[in-house]
């Protein structure tokens, strides 16, 4: 069991190292990368099977007891996120075998991709606030490398903005960690959850919470810290943009949900309205930004921002249904968003551009692509019976039951505007007659198969979540129950022979 617990870290780490050992040999790197992604998916599936009923697997690294050592915790939430990370790893590894694979792999795509996965998985399994900071840094370094893979001036410009904002964010994170350590004398999340309600200076704790919100919010691209995202994502190559869109912002959301359900659950009166306002503003600003743009990559980037708002509703309301809605939303969103970015790559290959003005007539040349685009696009807008409908239903019903009618109204309105953006892409790229200009030569059969396979698979998952919602919704409710069960989390981490720090705290 302990080996399985460490596996989500060891598999990407070993894959990154092995791929780097084959430096300069693209084909071998690609095979290793694919194998590593598949093993990661298998490991995540095994972990989810262990904890699907609501249990937790806990391990103390190096045998140092909590709260002194570094704790790894996999509960249902972490396991779901790991599983979806595995799905994304396999999809992107497969897609990255298509066009441009050689140049990417020569620039070090495989080691960087798996280092990124290492940081993401680490952030999901850690039970320690400072360790979370370390995984954020691992992720940041790997993502910077991935962002400037092609070394074009536009990429360097986007990458610099990305790094600058994220460095400011992680500095805020570090300050918050210092403040919290000063207040509580521990950084183990379970120990902090135990001590947080009893801390005398709640004002200082709330201030540290706001710093953490800035740090995680910058990662998650919430209003008003989202400017880096459209600037950086639209310059990245397609597989990189897909994995970023799927995972990077969601790690920020995951950190917010994890930390707020553990550390600040006793202070909903203060943080609830703050998070609610941030959620609504993020939804609205993101969708308006998307409506104003006419480039596929930029529209999709702004939609990530808008959707992040939905995921924060749960933690703002702190009710089981609302949190389950957020979890379901994350699940649905990662699949759909990554798929849309992969589709954007396919659209460019068929039509030659990301700019809507230069696209057109794809429905005639590539009707299959059009159908495949409709599945995630309509799901993102929330049309029944696709996964986005159920995700929005859970979030909106959770808001109404908690009396947050304003949030529910914003969520409905934003859904409508999302539909507008998706229909805009559809009309411009597929429906309108093709503009003057030479069509690209059709890609080779093998390349087309490698780039279409993940798109079809992810569209299939979207349809499966939509048509067979019961198990996914039930799992989300289990996750929400586990997140609200702070006592259970604390007991699981600190239980046998645990040393309590109560005497040390002033």
């Amino acid at each position: 069991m302990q080996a399985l617990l460490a596996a989500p870290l060891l598999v990407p780490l070993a894959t990154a190292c092995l791929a780097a050992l084959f430096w300069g040999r693209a084909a071998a790197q690609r095979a290793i990368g694919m194998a590593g992604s598949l093993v990661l998916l298998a490991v995540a599936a095994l972990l989810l099977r262990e904890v699907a009923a609501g249990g937790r697997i806990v391990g103390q690294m190096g045998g140092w007891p909590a709260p002194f050592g570094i704790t790894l915790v996999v509960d249902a939430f972490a396991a779901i996120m790991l599983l979806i990370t595995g799905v994304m790893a396999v999809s992107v590894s497969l897609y990255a075998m298509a066009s441009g694979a050689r140049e990417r792999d020569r620039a070090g795509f495989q080691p960087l991709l798996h280092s990124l996965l290492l940081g993401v998985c680490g952030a999901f399994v850690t039970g320690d606030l400072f360790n979370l900071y370390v995984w954020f840094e691992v992720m940041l370094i790997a993502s910077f490398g991935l962002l400037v893979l092609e070394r074009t001036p536009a990429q360097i410009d986007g990458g610099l903005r990305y790094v600058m904002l994220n460095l400011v964010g992680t500095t805020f994170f570090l300050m918050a960690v210092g403040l919290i350590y000063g207040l509580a004398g521990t950084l183990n999340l379970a120990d902090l959850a135990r001590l947080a309600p009893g801390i005398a200076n709640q004002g200082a704790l709330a201030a540290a919470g706001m710093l953490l919100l800035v740090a995680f919010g910058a990662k998650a691209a919430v209003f008003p810290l989202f400017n880096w995202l459209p600037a950086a994502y639209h310059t990245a190559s397609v597989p990189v943009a897909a994995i970023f869109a799927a995972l990077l912002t969601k790690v920020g959301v995951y950190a917010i949900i994890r930390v707020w359900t553990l550390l600040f659950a006793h202070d909903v009166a203060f943080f609830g309205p703050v998070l609610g306002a941030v959620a609504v503003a993020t939804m609205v600003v993101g969708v308006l930004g998307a409506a104003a743009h006419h480039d596929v990559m930029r529209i999709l980037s702004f939609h990530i921002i808008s959707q992040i708002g939905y995921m924060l509703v749960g933690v703002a309301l702190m009710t089981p249904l609302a949190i389950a809605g957020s979890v379901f939303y994350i699940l649905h969103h990662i699949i759909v968003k990554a798929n849309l970015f992969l589709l954007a790559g396919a659209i460019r290959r068929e039509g030659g551009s990301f700019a809507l003005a230069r696209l057109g007539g794809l429905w005639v040349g590539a009707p299959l692509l059009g159908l495949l685009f409709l599945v995630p696009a309509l799901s993102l807008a929330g049309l029944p019976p696709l996964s986005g409908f159920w995700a929005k239903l859970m979030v909106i019903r959770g808001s109404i039951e908690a009396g947050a009618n304003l949030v529910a109204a914003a969520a409905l309105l934003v859904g409508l505007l999302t539909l507008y953006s998706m229909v805009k892409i559809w009309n411009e790229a597929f429906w309108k007659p093709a503009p003057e200009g030479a069509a690209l030569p059709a890609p080779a059969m093998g390349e087309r198969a490698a780039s279409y396979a993940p798109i079809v698979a992810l569209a299939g998952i979207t349809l499966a979540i939509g048509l067979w919602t019961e198990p996914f919704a039930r799992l989300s409710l289990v996750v929400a129950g586990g997140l609200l069960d702070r006592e259970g989390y604390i007991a699981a981490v600190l239980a046998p022979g645990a040393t309590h720090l109560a005497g040390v705290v002033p």
Partner: protein
Amino acid sequence: MRPSLILRTSAPMLLWLSLLASLYVLVRGHNEPGGGFLGGLVAASGLLFHAIARGPEGVRTLLVLHPVQLSALGVLLAATSGLPAFLGPDGAYLTHLWWFAELGVTLPLGTALLFDLGVYLAVVGMAVAIFIGLLEWKAARAAATEGGE
């Protein structure tokens, strides 16, 4: 600018001196200041000196492996050093195992030394990759400006 004769002659000696010192720092690090990271930096400084005297190519041939490969090998070694922990009863990852060899004096050997060695290699690889990259970039830029004149 060509490095001086004195520098070119003394560079190999300084290289071995710094490598020896780095190994001392590496082993000393278990209970006293030092360890894989510091040792790696000391070794890398020796290699940097060699690169200035004999050119980046000299260091490349000396290392055999590409610096990135060296780093990967180091990280892999460090990660592997935590695996024997799983052999024990509910051992947690990175719980290091110890073997006290009695060879006249008690020699405390353990998997932690492998971990430190991995860090050492990773640091050497990364530092070399960075300064070789910078030196070659500088050389390429110098060649470009000469060609322009």
